[in-house]
């Protein structure tokens, strides 16, 4: 039995060849480094808007009085709306359809008069009514109406001249308020490292096996352990580079407040181990490069969408939440967010143990199934 199973010089040689092959293949560089960054920039920009969203609001003022103008001005001052006037002659419903508007607020004729009467006289008289013409099928219109009602409630309360009786004060369970982008970046890190490790491992091994490079390697002193360690270390180096680039862009562009600590390295490493291992198993089971890739796709897509990369798992129906909890990527996401947003060491440790156990099992199976020679390992 050969005891010289790990050769540092061989692992170094393999990593040098892998890195050279990597940067000489421009499409691989793009997908590995630039693509996750583009995802962060695109989604970050979209959802950055949502955090302080300014809504388009069309108002048809049929009264054209001082009071109605004051109301429009008050809504404008709330800084939540970008107000566009609608001509009093237009038919509001038709106008909304023609101009693809999802909400028009109509200030009725005699608005000023009714308001005066209401304020001066009987507080029990029916309130002045504004009409909201809206498209119930439009995306986000409910939120917009909610924001409008809140603004109106505030105006009502100020006009009544009395301080509010009940107010609420939000207290976050986190140490600080976090934005969507801060939720999103750890998810993209976990996903990018998973995809690259899985496909890196599947593609490299299946291709080299099919081309016969592995057969040549089996006539050199390289061992199975050398080969596997080379793959893992190479993927880890790339994962660290890719993660660093993602974080730098996130800090520079969105000024994210994410904690960088040792947990980040731990989860990136476990992410690499788990999915390089899974890739090795797929290569062995599928045998052909194409079917190995297809199998990797089949595993990757559910994980990408269901394990909380793009949106919180809590948004999904109960049975999908249960399903998410058996996906290994879920624990990388949870762990990274616990470490980077909440800085909750207990939660991070819990996730690390689960994904660590998974990585260990998969990796051992990967080692057992990988062959370097033509026959049994």
């Amino acid at each position, binding site marked *: 039995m*050969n005891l*010289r199973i790990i*050769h540092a*010089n*061989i692992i*170094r*040689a393999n990593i*040098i*060849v892998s890195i*050279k*092959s990597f940067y*000489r*293949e421009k499409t691989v560089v793009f997908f590995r480094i630039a693509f996750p960054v583009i995802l962060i920039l695109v989604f970050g920009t979209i959802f950055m808007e949502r955090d302080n969203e300014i809504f388009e609001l069309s108002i048809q003022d049929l009264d054209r009085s001082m009071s109605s103008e004051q109301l429009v001005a008050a809504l404008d001052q709330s800084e939540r709306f970008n107000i566009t006037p609608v001509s009093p002659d237009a038919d509001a419903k038709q106008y909304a359809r023609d101009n693809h508007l999802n909400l028009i607020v109509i200030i009725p004729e005699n608005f000023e008069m009714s308001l005066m009467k209401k304020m001066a006289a009987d507080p029990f008289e029916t309130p002045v009514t504004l009409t909201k013409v809206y498209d119930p099928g439009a995306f986000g219109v409910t939120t917009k109406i909610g924001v409008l009602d809140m603004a109106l409630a505030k105006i009502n309360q100020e006009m009544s001249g009395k301080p509010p009786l009940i107010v609420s004060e939000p207290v976050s369970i986190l140490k600080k308020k976090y934005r969507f982008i801060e939720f999103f970046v750890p998810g993209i890190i976990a996903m990018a490292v998973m995809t690259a490790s899985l496909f890196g491992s599947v593609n490299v091994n299946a291709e080299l096996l099919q*081309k*016969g*490079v592995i*057969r*040549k*390697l*089996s*006539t*050199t*002193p*390289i061992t199975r352990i050398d080969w596997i360690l080379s793959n893992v270390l190479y993927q880890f180096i790339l994962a660290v580079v890719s993660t660093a680039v993602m974080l730098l862009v996130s800090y520079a562009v969105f000024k994210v407040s994410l904690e960088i600590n040792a947990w980040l390295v731990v989860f990136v490493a476990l992410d690499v181990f788990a999915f390089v291992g899974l890739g090795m198993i797929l290569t062995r089971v599928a045998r052909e490069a194409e079917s190995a890739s297809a199998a990797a796709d089949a595993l990757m897509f559910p994980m990408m969408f269901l394990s909380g990369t793009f949106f919180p798992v809590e948004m999904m129906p109960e049975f999908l939440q249960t399903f998410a909890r058996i996906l290994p990527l879920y624990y990388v996401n949870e762990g990274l967010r616990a470490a980077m947003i909440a800085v909750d060491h207990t939660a991070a440790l819990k996730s690390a143990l689960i994904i660590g156990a998974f990585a260990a099992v998969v990796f051992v199976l990967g080692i057992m199934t990988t062959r370097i*020679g*033509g*026959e049994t390992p």
Partner: protein
Amino acid sequence: MTQNNKYSIEVHHLTKHYKGLSAVDNISFTVEKGEVFALLGPNGAGKTTTVEILNTIRTPTSGKVMLLGMDVTEKKYDIIPRIGVLPQGFSSFDRITVKETLQYYSRLFCCRKPDIDGLMALVNLKDKAAVQYKNLSGGLKQRLGIAVALVNDPEIVFLDEPTTGLDPLARRAMWEVLLDLKKKGKTLFLTTHYMEEAELLADTVAIVKKGKITAMDSPGELIENNAHHLVVMLKSVDETVFDIVEKMGFAPDYDSHGHITVRLTHTDDVRRLLNAVRDGGASFTGLDVRKPNLEEVFLKLTDDTFLKSVAGIEEAP
């Protein structure tokens, strides 16, 4: 080990079964140091299986294989640094240059000071040093494969079908390289299904068929011992020649160029045949009388139907 000093390779009763099929069936041979040994056989004869067992990649079902005095099943990691292998269909990393490929493989063998330039010169790839593997032609890829097989300065070089798939020019260039290696005194173990390759390069040729060695000798001796006949070729446009030869009891072959080939056992038969043609008033434009080449010996030893076309001669002992 001293008693085995004469031999680089010793194979005793080697057998390899795959799911009940025997790919290699009880073969034995020895290869001396500095000898060029060729395993010649049609596709599927068991050549690659044999060479892969010798390379320690596969394990034999039974039998004993000794390389440089060491058992291949026990001393894999002692044998590997001392042999060089060009596997069938050699391939390497697409984006890595010729020079980097050689550096990579020499690092795998921990060569302290590999002579990369010397290796590139040997296989005539010096001006391609900075070219990436994927941009090399088929012939250059194979030559790089040879250089890779030599990075560890091996005592035995295994070449599994080194010229398969190459055009005639590239094949000749490869032969030049192999003849150079032969001159340097390396032990070469070659598998091929090209007769001229075996005839040109090998000191000893073993012909394999269905996992068995059917003949083994130097190319000259193989021809001498297995071809007791002469090949007469008449270049003719006259169809009566064919009838005359057939009536004499021979089995002539007629090809699309209008050439008639006849296999004859005795030199007397040649005179008889030519006289008969002349007497029959037929004409021919050219004549060629020669000993059979290794290709014909090979066909005879590997193809049962070949004998039927050789009329009037007995099967070789």
